[in-house]
């Protein structure tokens, strides 16, 4: 579907109007570098550590493109209130974040979760931060698995009895085979010796991020925009191409 000339003219205003860059620093700070960062709550350094999830670092310009598409630019009234539209009446995204539901608790920093719960979403900074959190929530793949219980940091010990297996021990003491193995990686079922002590921490079932969807425009359109704007993916592609002409 062809993008409307009016919409194209609107976003092309961003080529000459620096007001469209007003939130660049905020977005860069939120997304972070794809390496160790002083800002531990930034998304890229935080998620790149979880190698098993296959996280690929996100370019902050993608979020900038979404901001342009979502807001329509600084000439819109919402630019200084809800530029990313989070919190518009009936918006399910805001409810998800406020309740830390649908896995968003694993995506948001505790400070951001608290801010979304207690502060006005009509502040543009918080609105953008909330939108980024919702995007990451929608792009993550979650599963419920046995994880270390962070509410109990005690390291316990258990003595192996005759006939024990790791599964049996884990069930008896309230941990998981994975946790038992993490304390002694060479342990396997065949190496258990009666009387030997194993260290462990308590485990519980919890939600974890196990993977990520492809960060392409079509997936973002479906997952973030929910199929509301049939041109969403094309608009993102257009704005991204437009960025190559930005001379700041």
């Amino acid at each position, binding site marked *: 579907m062809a993008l409307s000339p009016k919409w194209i003219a609107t976003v092309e205003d961003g080529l000459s109007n620096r007001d469209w860059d007003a939130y660049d620093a905020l977005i860069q700070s939120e997304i972070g570098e794809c390496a160790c960062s002083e800002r531990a709550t930034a998304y890229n350094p935080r998620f790149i550590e979880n190698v098993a999830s296959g996280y690929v670092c996100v370019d902050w310009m993608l979020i900038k493109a979404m901001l342009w598409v979502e*807001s329509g630019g600084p000439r819109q009234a*919402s630019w200084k209130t809800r530029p990313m539209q989070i919190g*518009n009446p*009936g918006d*399910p995204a805001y409810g998800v974040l406020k309740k830390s539901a649908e896995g968003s608790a694993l995506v948001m920093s505790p400070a951001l979760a608290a801010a979304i719960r207690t502060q006005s979403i009509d502040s543009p900074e918080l609105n953008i931060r909330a939108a980024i959190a919702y995007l990451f929530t929608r792009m993550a793949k979650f599963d419920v698995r046995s994880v270390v219980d962070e509410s109990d940091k005690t390291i316990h010990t258990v003595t192996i009895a005759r006939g024990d297996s790791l599964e049996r021990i884990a069930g008896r003491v309230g941990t998981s085979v994975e946790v038992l193995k993490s304390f002694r990686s060479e342990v396997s079922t065949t190496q258990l010796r009666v009387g030997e002590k194993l260290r462990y921490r308590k485990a519980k079932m919890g939600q974890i991020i196990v993977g990520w969807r492809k960060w392409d425009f079509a997936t973002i359109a*479906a997952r973030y925009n929910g199929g*509301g*704007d049939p041109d*969403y993916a094309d608009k993102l592609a257009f704005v991204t191409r437009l960025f190559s002409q930005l001379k700041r």
Partner: protein
Amino acid sequence: MPVRPLVAVLIASLVFVAAPLGAAPAARLPSWQDFYRIVHPALVRQEVIDPRRALVHLACLCEARSPGGFLFRVVEVRELVRGGPSPRGVNQLLVLDRQLKVTDRIEIATAHGLYCDGASIILDRPAESPRLGQEGNLLRIDDGGRISSLGEIEAAGMEGIRPVLSSRPSLTRPRSAP
């Protein structure tokens, strides 16, 4: 009592009373207007449709029959969050029992429902169920009207879906047949 609510109540009672309980066929809604008049408020009451959003599509897609023979209506709802130039869509496929209670729902985003075939609901592209951890365009429902599995079927290559699903395609026929 005003006339319109009275008519709605009468139609609703026909819907609920006409079919016996169990595996008997569900009563047909008399017309599209009646469907809208009855189903829409039922979905608002269950907070599936949010009146603050713009309702842009509400249609009964088809009736699915569970393995135990229970009939469920499959309804497609598409809403837009008002406000931005690129409004967020809240697009869902709903499974409704005879009392119009939503037994399950799934977010369909850019996908659309095509038709039902027995306990299967076929979409034009994959949807995803976080509860099941599965995705696919072939949804199967159980006797409670819950989506129990998602699989893949090549809907685009099926017979009979053009131009307007005048005949229901057989899931057992080879998809490559012209």
